[in-house]
């Protein structure tokens, strides 16, 4: 199978080179056959990558350890379900996966491209083919997944234990797929600009492909956060790790883009700005590829580190030069005809939100690149950690949420004082009331209370929008559910956006809860002993061995009791005097009000071949809070070392995912064509006659 894989890669290389050259030359000399042939070559590269990927997957299924990549990332003990994960577990395979995603997306987008972009398609195809060519070259000569070993081992090294998690079936492919998907809108817009198409013809294809990339990337990040929460054993979900950041940055820019493209669609403004945003997103995606592959910064994702850095750095610089040279070249033609009429309008609110998104991106970029610059310029090792990002980005992110509430209430063009008063009263009232109630309930932390107020304000503004629209439709005869459905269906991009906003609010609740109100304690328990934190008593009741040839593993059985704080007043007071939030109990006697509510089984393993520990935390999750038990170590004296935390509102982080996906799909779902007369299908006798 290695031979087939190598042949497919080399063929793909030749085909993509032909597609790039043939497309441009055919367009320049007016040779239609060459243009069509080049487009077909692009489709054939997809087949070549599919076959190369199939060959690698087959090698994993067959345990073909003559291939170095298979021997490095699997073994006979590996659950076959993880073949898909093993496929992209290392550099070579992940690059092949990226190329596969790019080739499929390129072929589909070119096939379904609107006919009005026909004159710019040869340039779009050339850009897509050049980017594919880069990956074919890297895969063929620098990171070949089909490289053979001189001596075939009896068994492989096995898959990285951190990857043996359900989230790994979707998190890496979605992140890599989302990053590379930004190539599609970039190629279409750049192709149009090169061809001299300065109008809005590319809006729809750029918007749809950008939202797809954004949705996939966002979902991938959320799944990654869940993976980190359940497997990395540190109790958090977002560490501002460089690899997380390089996915977040293009996502932020795409978020700005999918808002401002609405202004271009509706008002014919921000054309130049939108092109710039797409360029920035594309270059940041290349930065992501570079940092992922090159490993200039330390990350929990270091399993993908390699010496490919210089190759990807060169490609990123070339992308940057190309994108901005093209932008500067076509800038004079991109100016919009219209100017903003008022700063109290929806388009102005979108502009402000764009600046806020770019601010977070810039702060994050600086945090990612500073260690690299410091090492390069001063030869010192510096790491930028979460406090910097939280302090610098926190207020701006809160500002973005505020704008999420304000923007939808403002009409396009300008807003009258009457409208402002009319539409803002209810959400503001709800926000202020929330703050008052929380203060009255004795909730601590002013910043968090304000943030809760902001969340309530935005939720009320969305409710108001839906209420107003639904009532208007109900008055014209629809029943309530149908009225709401028609409202949403009538403008899917807008109302899909509101559903996404709801998911962001849910995410916000989780972030506020876990960041401001988390409680932590730790301790070592012998069998029968308990650890008490807040309203929970966690008793260590049993343990067992689950070792396999590739790992030494133990589990612990824990009974979780809900307790009445009054029963433990004395111990709590003693622990509080020592500055601790929790304490251990030697006796297993239960107090009067202790109530068994759950059994959890955290797990701790050590993988000898990888010299790596892996844990599965015990999590009891409710709408209000998560009880999170991390088994740090099984000690020689039979005790277990535990770290326990209470993560308020953590459930909402993960519940936001389905809303995010549904909202994205609603926003993407094609609107019915607004043409209220039958469209006669014209005979397109002057087309090339095929896709």
């Amino acid at each position, binding site marked *: *199978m*290695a*031979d*087939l894989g190598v*042949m*497919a890669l080399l*063929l793909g290389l030749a*085909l993509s080179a032909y597609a790039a050259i043939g497309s441009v030359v055919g367009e320049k000399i007016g040779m*239609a*056959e*060459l*243009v*069509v*042939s*080049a487009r*077909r*070559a692009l*489709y*054939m590269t997809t*087949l*070549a990558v599919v*076959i190369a990927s199939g*060959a690698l997957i087959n090698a994993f299924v067959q345990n073909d350890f003559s291939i170095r990549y298979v021997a490095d990332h699997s073994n006979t003990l590996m659950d076959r379900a993880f073949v898909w994960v093993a496929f992209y577990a290392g550099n070579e395979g992940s690059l092949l996966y990226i190329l596969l995603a790019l080739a499929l997306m390129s072929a589909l987008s070119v096939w379904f491209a*609107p*006919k*009005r972009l*026909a*004159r710019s398609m040869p340039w779009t195809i050339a850009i897509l083919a050049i980017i594919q060519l880069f990956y074919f070259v890297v895969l063929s000569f620098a990171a070949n997944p089909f490289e053979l070993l001189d001596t075939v081992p009896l068994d492989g090294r096995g898959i990285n234990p951190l990857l043996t998690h359900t989230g790994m079936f979707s998190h890496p492919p979605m992140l890599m797929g989302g990053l590379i998907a930004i190539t599609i809108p970039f190629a279409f817009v750049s192709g149009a600009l090169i061809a001299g198409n300065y*109008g*809005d*013809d590319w809006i*729809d294809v750029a918007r749809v492909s950008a939202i797809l990339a954004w949705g996939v990337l966002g979902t991938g990040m959320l799944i990654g956060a869940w993976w980190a929460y359940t497997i990395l054993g540190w109790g958090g979900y977002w560490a501002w790790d460089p690899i997380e950041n390089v996915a977040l940055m293009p996502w932020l820019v795409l978020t700005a883009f999918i808002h401002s493209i609405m202004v271009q*669609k*509706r008002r014919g403004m921000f054309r130049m700005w939108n092109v710039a945003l797409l360029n920035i997103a594309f270059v940041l995606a290349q930065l992501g590829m570079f940092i992922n592959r090159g490993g200039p910064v330390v990350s929990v994702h270091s399993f993908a580190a390699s010496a490919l850095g210089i190759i990807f750095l060169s490609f990123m610089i070339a992308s940057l030069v190309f994108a901005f040279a093209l932008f500067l070249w076509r800038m004079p033609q991109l100016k919009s005809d219209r100017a903003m009429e008022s700063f109290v309008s929806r388009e102005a609110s979108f502009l402000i939100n764009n600046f806020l998104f770019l601010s977070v991106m810039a702060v994050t970029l600086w945090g990612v690149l500073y260690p690299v610059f410091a090492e390069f310029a001063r030869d010192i090792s510096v790491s930028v950690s979460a406090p910097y990002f939280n302090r610098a980005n926190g207020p701006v992110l809160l500002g973005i949420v505020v704008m999420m509430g304000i923007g939808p209430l403002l*009409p*396009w*063009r300008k807003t*009258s004082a009457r*409208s402002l008063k009319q539409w803002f009263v209810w959400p503001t009232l709800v926000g202020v009331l929330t703050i008052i109630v929380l203060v009255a309930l004795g909730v601590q932390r002013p910043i968090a209370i304000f943030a809760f107020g902001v969340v309530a304000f935005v939720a009320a503004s969305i409710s108001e*929008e839906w209420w*107003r*629209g639904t009532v*208007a*439709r109900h008055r*014209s005869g629809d029943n309530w559910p149908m009225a709401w459905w028609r*409202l949403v269906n*009538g*403008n899917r991009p*807008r109302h899909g956006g509101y559903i996404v906003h709801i998911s962001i609010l849910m995410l916000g609740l989780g972030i506020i809860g876990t960041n401001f109100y988390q409680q932590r304690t730790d301790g070592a328990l012998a069998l029968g002993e308990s650890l008490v934190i807040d309203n929970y008593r966690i008793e260590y009741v049993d343990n067992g061995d689950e070792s396999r040839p590739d790992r030494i593993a133990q589990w612990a059985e824990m009974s979780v009791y809900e307790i009445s704080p009054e029963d433990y007043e004395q111990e709590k007071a003693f622990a509080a005097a020592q500055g601790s939030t929790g304490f251990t109990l030697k006796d297993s006697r239960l107090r009067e009000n202790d109530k068994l509510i759950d059994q959890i089984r955290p797990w701790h393993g050590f993988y000898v071949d990888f010299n790596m520990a892996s844990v599965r935390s015990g999590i009891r999750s409710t709408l209000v809070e998560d009880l999170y038990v991390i088994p740090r170590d099984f000690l020689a004296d039979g005790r277990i070392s535990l770290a326990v935390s209470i993560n308020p509102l953590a459930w909402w982080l993960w519940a936001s995912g389905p809303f995010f996906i549904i909202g994205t799909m609603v926003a993407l779902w094609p*609107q019915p*064509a*607004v*043409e*209220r*007369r039958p469209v006669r299908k014209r005979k*397109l006798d*002057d*087309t*090339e*006659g095929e896709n």
Partner: protein
Amino acid sequence: MPIVLGTLLALVSIAVIAYPFLGSKRYRLVSETFVTREKLRAERLRIYRKITDLESDFTSGDLTDADYQLQRDQLRMSAAEILRQESGAKTTNSTRDEELEKEISRLREQTAQSPEGGDTLK
């Protein structure tokens, strides 16, 4: 076997990309007329969509009556202009303006006569 499969893939690829040169079908690059026609159609549909969104905003109370009327008329004028371009009518600037005025008046009348006072894009 893998070598045979690889060779087969190469031969199929060559056949597919060579076909436009060797087959009997003749290809032509897309004409400017065709692209213009497609662009106009897309622009017209975009304007129709904008009018629908405008109606939706107005129904929801996002727009004042005056703003709604003004924006709708502007959009209808643009749509009428595109329809005229699509039909390929060649008119001088002055006659075109007159015809646009007539078209707007006709649309206004139609709106006034509509039982719900709503908008139709006929």
